[in-house]
């Protein structure tokens, strides 16, 4: 629904004060849930998303198992209190679609072939939602997979680009997503230089589409650095302690 609100002001600033190519503040953490094999938490804008990974474990029921590779199960789910109006806990059609889309964004990054007949479960819980929750969820999920010690080709970085008052902008927030003219979430596996998630709604000319894709790549590069940082913060102390120990041992 169009509103009369201006989404970009005379200084070229967006409703939350960002420039067109600026990301929202983002915070990522790894390894917070005691029971899960891997876990992560991301806060991006108002998005608050927690991810747990269980596995690899034997496929159950067994007939689900694949003799050549691990299968991945993925659920993107929103808490009833995560939205403006209370959301019914039953999965919506949107959540069903996003669970599939995110699974397909993660799968090409996982060395599934290392774990035949196994199963890896990825549970993404949106505790509070804002624009770009599928991208934030995808990034957090790849961190949780890494935290579970599952070998990855690389992490998966993701962000949305869109069009607001004719301007291509990076990392839409809630208002821009709803009132803007286009929204395109993109996920990238940096080590492969390839796109593993791509959706779009709204309208783009060919030039806008190319420009938006370019901007998404740029956004993903920045976010990828933050992802690596989150892993380091979790594992560097351990590694250093280990090295210190080894040195001490010598």
């Amino acid at each position: 629904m169009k509103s009369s609100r201006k989404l970009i002001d005379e200084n070229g600033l967006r409703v939350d004060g960002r420039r067109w190519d600026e990301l929202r503040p983002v915070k990522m953490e790894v390894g917070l849930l005691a029971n899960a094999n891997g876990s992560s938490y991301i806060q991006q804008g108002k998005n608050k998303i927690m991810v747990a990974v269980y596995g690899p474990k034997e496929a159950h029921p067994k007939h689900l198992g694949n003799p050549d590779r691990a299968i991945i199960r993925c659920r993107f789910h929103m808490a009833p209190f995560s939205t403006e109006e209370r959301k019914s806990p039953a999965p919506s059609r949107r959540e069903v679609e996003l669970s599939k889309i995110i699974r397909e964004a993660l799968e090409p990054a996982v060395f599934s072939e290392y774990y035949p007949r196994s199963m890896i479960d990825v549970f993404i819980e949106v505790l509070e939602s804002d624009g770009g929750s599928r991208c934030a969820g995808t990034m957090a999920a790849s961190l949780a997979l890494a935290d579970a010690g599952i070998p990855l080709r690389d992490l998966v970085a993701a962000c949305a680009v869109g069009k607001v008052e004719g301007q291509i902008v990076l990392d839409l927030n809630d208002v821009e997503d709803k009132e803007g003219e286009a929204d395109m979430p993109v996920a990238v596996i940096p080590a492969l230089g390839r796109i593993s998630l791509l959706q779009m709604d709204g309208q783009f000319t060919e030039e806008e589409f190319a420009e938006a894709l370019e901007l998404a790549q740029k956004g993903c590069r920045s976010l990828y650095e933050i992802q690596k940082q989150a892993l380091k913060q979790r594992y560097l102390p351990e590694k250093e302690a280990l090295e210190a120990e080894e040195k001490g041992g010598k």
Partner: protein
Amino acid sequence: MSITSQAEPLAKIRSKQMMELLASGKRIDGRDLLAQREITLERGIIEKAEGSASVTLGNTRVLVGVKIEAGEPYPDTPNQGVLTVNAEFVPLAHEFFEPGPPNENSIELARIVDRGIRESKAVDLEKLVLTPGRLVYVVFVDIYILNHDGNLVDASEYAALAALQQAKLPKVEVGEDGEVKRTGEFEKLPVVDTPISVTVAEIDGKLLVDPNLEEENMAQAKVTMTLTKDNKLCAVQKSGAGTFAFNQILECFKIAREKSSEIRRKFFEE
């Protein structure tokens, strides 16, 4: 929960043959990489539906029925009619389709078709209001897959658009007590754009338009791009557990623009 899909395994010899052909730019059914299968389109099949159309795309066969009723608007769009797209993968269509509620594949398909129609603003929803904020027309687009031989999205999208173009809007009178009665007269449903989707699969670095089922089972990833009559992109969906390179995506856009224009000209321009 979404789960890694188990594609129907292709016989080794068949898949080897497919790869060899692809290497020389040919496909298993003799098509060029960028050739679509033959399309047939029939409008106005179901008398009890306000609109209907069937599409065949090679052996893929889809029927779409449009029903129009009076109902409440969504709270956040009180001055618009309601459009709702639903897909059923009825077990007629393939041995692996099970009866039951929609699953992730039928939901995804319905949402891609919905997105193309909605984002192109093909149906002028603002013309579908009876009593602002209270009563509007609800347009149900029901997609019925009758035979599955790949690329269900495009076949469904074409059939949905054709059914909408052919649909008649029943005139109604709203009584004082809110009762709704059909007058027996009809108008045309206001369809003002012609979004056309084109699906491209990637196999071994090659881009193939309109993949058949064997090709879909070999492909790691597909992407569907839907374009308006002004050649604007209005919906994209990458699908499948694989990836595309950035330049491939731009290439897909060019393919989609060309193919969608052809189809629009051939089937959807009045």
